[in-house]
C-alpha cells in the first residue's frame, strides 16, 4: 500500500491492515465473538498485530479489551470467530500458544507472598528452564527492571510501580513472541506510569511484539504505532495513530500575528472568505493565536495566501493534530471515559460500515 503515505485518509477502515511494511502478522483475530448473556463483550472483532510492532487497543471501560486479551491468552473460550497467535490457534493449540505469549494484566499477576526473585525463578522453572538458566534469567531480569535490591523482599512490600515492573519481568522470562499488556498503567500515579512506559518502550526497542490495551489516549500515543478503537465489543476504527487523527478531526492551524490587535480581524477575514473547515476559526487570547480548522493541504495553502495578501505579519504558524480524546469523541459520539450507555448508537456506523 504505497499510496497509504500519500493519502493517509484512505487507510482508515476496520479492515485488517495490509502488509504495508511487509511484516508478518503475529496476532490475527477474525470475527471474534464472546457474549455474557445480554452483554456483548466481543461482537465480531477483527484485528492484526504485526511482528515487531505495538498495536494499541483503545476503548472505554467495558469495551471488551480485557475479554479480548483473555481470549488471546487462552483464559476464556470465544463463542465464535478465530484467533491465532504466532501461528497457533487459540482453540486448537492452546498449549503451544501459551509457550509464545507473555501476559501482564490489569492486576499484577505475581505471587505477592513470594520475594521478587522467587517469583521469577518459579516461572522460569514452569517454563522448563533448567535450574541454572532459571536462576540466571531471574537475576538478569531483576537487574534489567531495577529490582535487584528488592530481590529478596516479598512482593507485597513493593510499591505499585515495582510490582508492575516485576509483573513485566515475569512476562518476559520465556522471551515471548507476543506480549499482552492489559491496561498496564491503570491505577498508577503519573511518575510510576512513566516508569512502566519507559520499560515498555525498551522492550519494544528490543523487538517485542505487543498488544496493548488502554483507556488512556496518551498511553496509546506514547507506546503504540497502530491503533484499534473498540467500543461495546466492536471495532469502530483502526489504522496508524496519525492517520486516525487526520481522518477524524482534520488538523488545526495555529497562526500568531505579531500584533495581538490583528487577532479578531484575522479570524473574521478567514471566516468571511470561507477558508475554514468544519467549524469557524477561533481566537485564543491566552496564546495570542487564531485557531483555524482545516481539512486539506489546499485549504492550508489558501489560508496562508490570504494572510499574506492582507499584509498581516505573523510570528509563528503551526498545524496540530487533534487529541485522541477528540478522536474518540468523534468516532463514538461519547467520551472515552464516560459510561457507554449514553452514547448514540449511530454515531460511528459510517466508520465501521
Amino acid at each position, binding site marked *: 500500500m504505497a499510496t497509504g503515505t500519500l493519502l493517509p485518509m484512505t487507510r482508515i477502515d476496520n479492515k485488517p491492515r495490509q502488509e504495508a511494511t511487509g511484516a508478518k502478522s503475529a496476532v490475527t483475530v477474525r470475527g471474534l465473538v464472546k457474549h455474557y448473556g445480554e452483554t456483548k463483550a466481543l461482537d465480531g472483532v477483527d484485528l492484526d498485530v504485526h511482528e515487531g510492532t505495538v498495536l494499541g487497543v483503545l476503548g472505554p471501560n467495558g469495551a471488551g479489551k480485557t475479554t479480548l486479551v483473555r481470549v488471546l491468552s487462552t483464559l476464556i473460550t470465544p463463542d465464535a470467530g478465530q484467533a491465532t497467535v504466532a501461528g497457533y490457534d487459540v482453540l486448537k*493449540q492452546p498449549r503451544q500458544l501459551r509457550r509464545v505469549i507473555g501476559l501482564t494484566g490489569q492486576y499484577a499477576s*505475581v505471587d505477592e*507472598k513470594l520475594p521478587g526473585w522467587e517469583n521469577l525463578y*518459579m516461572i522460569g522453572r*514452569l517454563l*522448563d528452564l533448567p535450574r541454572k538458566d532459571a536462576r540466571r*534469567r531471574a537475576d538478569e531480569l531483576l537487574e534489567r527492571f531495577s529490582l535487584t535490591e528488592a530481590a529478596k523482599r516479598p512482593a507485597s512490600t513493593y510499591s505499585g510501580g515495582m510490582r508492575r515492573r516485576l509483573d513485566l519481568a515475569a512476562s518476559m522470562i520465556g522471551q515471548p513472541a507476543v506480549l499482552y499488556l492489559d491496561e498496564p498503567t491503570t491505577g498508577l500515579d503519573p511518575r510510576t506510569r512513566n516508569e512502566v512506559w519507559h520499560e515498555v518502550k525498551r522492550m519494544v526497542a528490543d523487538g517485542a511484539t505487543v498488544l496493548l490495551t488502554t483507556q488512556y489516549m496518551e498511553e496509546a500515543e506514547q507506546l503504540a504505532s497502530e491503533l484499534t478503537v473498540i467500543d461495546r465489543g466492536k471495532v469502530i476504527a483502526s489504522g496508524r495513530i496519525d492517520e486516525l487523527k487526520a481522518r477524524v478531526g482534520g488538523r488545526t492551524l495555529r497562526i500568531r500575528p505579531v500584533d495581538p490587535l490583528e487577532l479578531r480581524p484575522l479570524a473574521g477575514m478567514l471566516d468571511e472568505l470561507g477558508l475554514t473547515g468544519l467549524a469557524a476559526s477561533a481566537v485564543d487570547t491566552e496564546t495570542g493565536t487564531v485557531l483555524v480548522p482545516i481539512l486539506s493541504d489546499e485549504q492550508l495553502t489558501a489560508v496562508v495566501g490570504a494572510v499574506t495578501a492582507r499584509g498581516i505579519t505573523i510570528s509563528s504558524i503551526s498545524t496540530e493534530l487533534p487529541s485522541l480524546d477528540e478522536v474518540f469523541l468523534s468516532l463514538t459520539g461519547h467520551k472515552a471515559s464516560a459510561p457507554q450507555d449514553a452514547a448514540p448508537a449511530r454515531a460511528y456506523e459510517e466508520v465501521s460500515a
Partner: protein
Amino acid sequence: MSTAVVEAPLAVKGDSRISPRAHARHIGALVRRNLLWIRQDPESMFDAVLMPVIFTLLFVYVFGGSIGQSLGGGQHKYVQYVVPGLMAMMGMNIATAVGTGFNQDFQTGVMDRFRTLPIGQGSVLFAKIVVELMRMLVATTILMIVGVLVGFDITNWPGLFAAVGLATLFGSALMWIFLVLGVTMKNAQSVQAMGFLVLMPLQFGSSIFSPTGTMPGWLQNFTDYNPLSSLADAARGLMVGGPVTHDLWVTLGWTAALTVVMAPIAIHKFRTKN
C-alpha cells in the same frame, strides 16, 4: 543483557505434550512456592501444629474418663480408642483449609499467570495437595507424640505406618472436594462456612470420638455409611488391633471414588474459571 528479548525463545516450541518429568518439575516449582509461603508466614502452620495438641488433650481429659469407663476401662482405654480416630479427623480439617487457601489464591492475579503458562492444568492443584499432605503428616506426627505422652501405646509400628498412609490417601481424596468448593465459591468465608457445615456432622456423626453403639438407630445408619467411621475404624484396627479388612476396603473405595469423580471436576473448574 537487554538484548535477551530478541534471542530465540528458550523453550521448545511446537510441542504440546508434557512429559512426566516436566510435570514433576512444574509441580516441584509450585510446591516450592507453597513451602516458601510457610517460611514467609510460619503462623500458617499453627493449625497443623496446635490442632492435634488441643484436640487430643480436650478429648482425652474431658471425655476420656467417662467414655473409657463405658469401654470397660478408663482414660487409658479411651486414649487407645481416640488417637486413631483423631488421625482420621486431621485429614478432614486440613482438607477444609485447602479450600479456603485455594480460594484466596484465586483472588490474586497469579492464577491467571499460571493458567497462561504451558503447564499441565492440574499441576497447580496437585502441588497444593502435595503441600497439604505434608502439613497433614506434620499434624499426624505431633498427634502421635502427644498421644504417646498421654498414654497411647504403640504396639504395632507397621500398622501405625499403614494407618498413616491410609489417612493420607483418604485426606488427598477429601482435598479434591474442597478444591472444587475453593474454585467454585465466591469467597474464602463461604468456603470456610461450607466446610464447617460439612465437617461437623461428618466428624461427630462417626466413630471417631466414641463408639456408636449407644446412638439412636437412624444415626447409627448414618455413621455406618460415613467414610470417616470406616477410616477411623480401619486406623484403629491397624494401630491397636481388631478387625481391619472390611473398613480398609470401604475406605479405599471411597478414596478412589472421590478422587475419580472430584479431581476431573476440580481441574475442569480450574481451567474454565472466568
